[in-house]
C-alpha cells in the first residue's frame, strides 16, 4: 500500500525567505503526486501535481516541486514566501492502477514571521 511521510510538523520562516517542505512517498510504481494547501476553515486547494515527464513541476502562487525517484521525494519549494502563504500543506499520492484514491501525509503547518 502507498504511504506519504511529511517529516516536518511545523515550519516557521520569515517573509521573503525561501521555503522547502519535504515529502517522501512509498509506492511500488511511478506515482501520481500532489501538493494541496489548506487555509483555516477552508477546503484543500491543489497547488500542483506530477504525473510524468519533466521532474520539475510549476504550480500556482509561485510554488514548484521536484520529483526525485532515487530519493522517493517530492519536495515543495518557493523562492520568496509571503505572509499569505501561512497555512497547512499536504502532500498526497494517488495509485496509478485505476480509481483515484489519494493517500495524504500528516501535513506541515507553515508559519510566516513578518
Amino acid at each position, binding site marked *: 500500500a502507498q504511504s506519504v511521510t511529511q517529516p516536518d510538523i511545523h515550519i516557521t520562516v520569515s517573509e521573503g525567505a525561501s521555503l522547502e517542505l519535504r515529502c517522501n512517498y512509498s509506492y511500488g510504481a511511478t506515482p501520481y503526486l500532489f501538493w494541496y494547501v489548506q487555509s483555516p476553515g477552508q477546503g484543500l486547494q491543489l497547488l500542483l501535481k506530477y504525473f510524468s515527464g519533466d521532474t520539475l513541476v510549476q504550480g500556482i502562487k509561485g510554488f514548484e516541486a521536484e520529483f526525485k525517484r532515487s530519493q522517493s521525494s517530492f519536495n515543495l519549494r518557493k523562492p520568496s514566501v509571503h505572509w499569505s502563504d501561512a497555512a497547512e500543506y499536504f502532500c498526497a499520492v*494517488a495509485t496509478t492502477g485505476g480509481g483515484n484514491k489519494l493517500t495524504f501525509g500528516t501535513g506541515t503547518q507553515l508559519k510566516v514571521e513578518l
Partner: protein
Amino acid sequence: EAGVAQSPRYKIIEKRQSVAFWCNPISGHATLYWYQQILGQGPKLLIQFQNNGVVDDSQLPKDRFSAERLKGVDSTLKIQPAKLEDSAVYLCASSLVGTSADTQYFGPGTRLTVL
C-alpha cells in the same frame, strides 16, 4: 463555476446521536469522495462514488457510517450512532471522471464535534 458545496459547516452532537452531512459536487463531475480529517492528520478516504455506484468504501466503518449518492449528483453521509472518536472535519470532493490523473476539488468541510 461554483465549487463543491457542503452543509452544515459545523455540528455539535452528543455521543450516540445521529448526524447527516450533505454535499453538492461541481456540476458535471461524475466522481464524488468523502474524506475524514481528524485533527493533526491528513484526510482519509471514507468512500468514493462513480456516478451513483460505490467504487471504494474499504475504510468506511459500515457498522455506523452510511453514504448514498442518489441520481449521481448530491450525496449524504450519515453517522448513527456517533462516537467520541468521530469528531473530525468531513470533507467532500469531486472530480470529473475519477481516474488517477484527475484533480479532486474539495469543499470547505463540515466540522463535527461529538461530546
